[in-house]
């Protein structure tokens, strides 16, 4: 949301408000950049991808509907689609040491310096994630944050391919259910209020 009111930033961008563009970069630039840095094979490709993503965000700002979820999730979804398209197009995925660190180190629980806080949906997703086993969490992290294929995850973690697929599927379903449940509660609260 906007610093200066309840109107969503994306809605203000769609109306041509220049200040909202800069606010959007302050609020979500790091989110998109961090995603691109992890999913793209190098920083140059990540920079190109981020520019494409924000062109998409500017073009689709008017499509944002606050009743469907947070702006952060809307932008993260656009970013993920663009990054996946680009990964498939260039045919390369990250192979650096960060991947090994993720496979072999404990899952990060805290918040990094400079992060801007989580949307309501992300908070619900985090709660659902915490209920999964460490293997399930790691598979989701490698798949969604590092852009790794199921085969690569199986190879990196030593888990059977079928197990990796099941972990990814059940993890996503669990988070989806949590988000649907959150929305239902909010709708009910709205009706009874």
């Amino acid at each position: 949301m906007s610093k200066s009111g309840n109107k969503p930033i994306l809605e203000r961008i769609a109306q041509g408000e220049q200040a909202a563009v800069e606010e959007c970069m302050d609020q979500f630039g790091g989110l998109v950049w961090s995603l691109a840095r992890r999913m793209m094979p190098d920083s140059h490709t990540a920079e190109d991808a981020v520019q494409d993503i924000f062109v998409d965000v500017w073009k689709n700002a008017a499509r944002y509907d606050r009743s469907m979820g947070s702006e952060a999730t809307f932008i993260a979804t656009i970013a993920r689609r663009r990054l996946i398209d680009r990964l498939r197009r260039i045919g390369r995925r990250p192979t650096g040491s960060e991947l090994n660190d993720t496979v072999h180190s404990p899952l990060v629980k805290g918040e990094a310096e400079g992060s801007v806080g989580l949307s309501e949906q992300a908070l619900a997703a985090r709660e659902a994630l915490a209920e999964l086993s460490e293997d399930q969490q790691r598979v989701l992290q490698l798949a969604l944050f590092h852009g790794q294929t199921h085969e690569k995850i199986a190879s990196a973690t030593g888990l059977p391919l079928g197990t990796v697929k099941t972990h990814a599927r059940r993890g996503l379903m669990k988070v989806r259910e949590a988000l649907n449940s959150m929305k239902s509660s909010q709708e009910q609260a709205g009706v009874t209020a």
Partner: protein
Amino acid sequence: MNTGQPHNPSDADRLLDLLTEQTATGLDSNKQAELDRLLAGQSEYSSDSFDEAAGALSEVFVNAAFEPMPENLRERCIGSAHAVRLTRDQDDAPTPIKMEAKPVPVPATNSWSSMGWVAAAACLMLAVFGWLQTPGSTVLSPAEPWINISGNQAVLASSRDEFIKSHAEAVIWDWAAWGDEYADVSGDVVWDPKTNEGYMRFTNLPANDPNESHYQLWIVDQTRGTPLEVPPVDGGMFDVEETADGGEWIVHFKARLPVGDAFGFGVTLEGPEGAVVSGQQKKTVIAISPPQES
């Protein structure tokens, strides 16, 4: 009949596997076709059923490994918003950019700038290239030889449009080709005398090999004296890359030496070191123009 559920358990599992894979890494065309077929047979899931969950999880993962965006990338992204907005504005309601041309300056000490266009151009060419080809002459060069304001061409195009709209004193001058070899070159230069800044736009200006040559901008500043009396100001070097046929090449520049009253601009193709040493240019490319008539 669509029952709302996949036809059998194996279809249901397969549908969820494909949706998961699509969300995480995307699908090849065969799997995408298979997913589309399975989705068509039920109504519980759609192709974006896991997108929101993946987006929310991405936020969670980023939050623990956040990296601030580099400032120059941030600026480029903000610039792309201008481009999108301008494109949308033009689509919605075409509004031609209106320019007010500056009157031709007439220095008190001479009358050469009131000549006809061809005579003025010839005079200017002589001023620019005559000085450069005079052995031992010294041109006015900044400490930093490069124009060095580069960027994505699409962003530069929108920045140029924005510059024209927001700089009330800016004037557009057309380039005139000089010599048969560059007869197809066209374009313009936008110059704001107040900020000593502008944009050059070229069509059909050949790409240069930076190992062998660079283009160089020259500015004739008549407050320094008549062009025949003082050499032009070195506006800096720049490179031109390959573009699609007929593609434009835009260069943003800011004069590093103050220009009081620009009468004309010239561009030359120089050797790899530029033209700090006079008489080294390989070819004369194009030059100047008088201000457009309003």
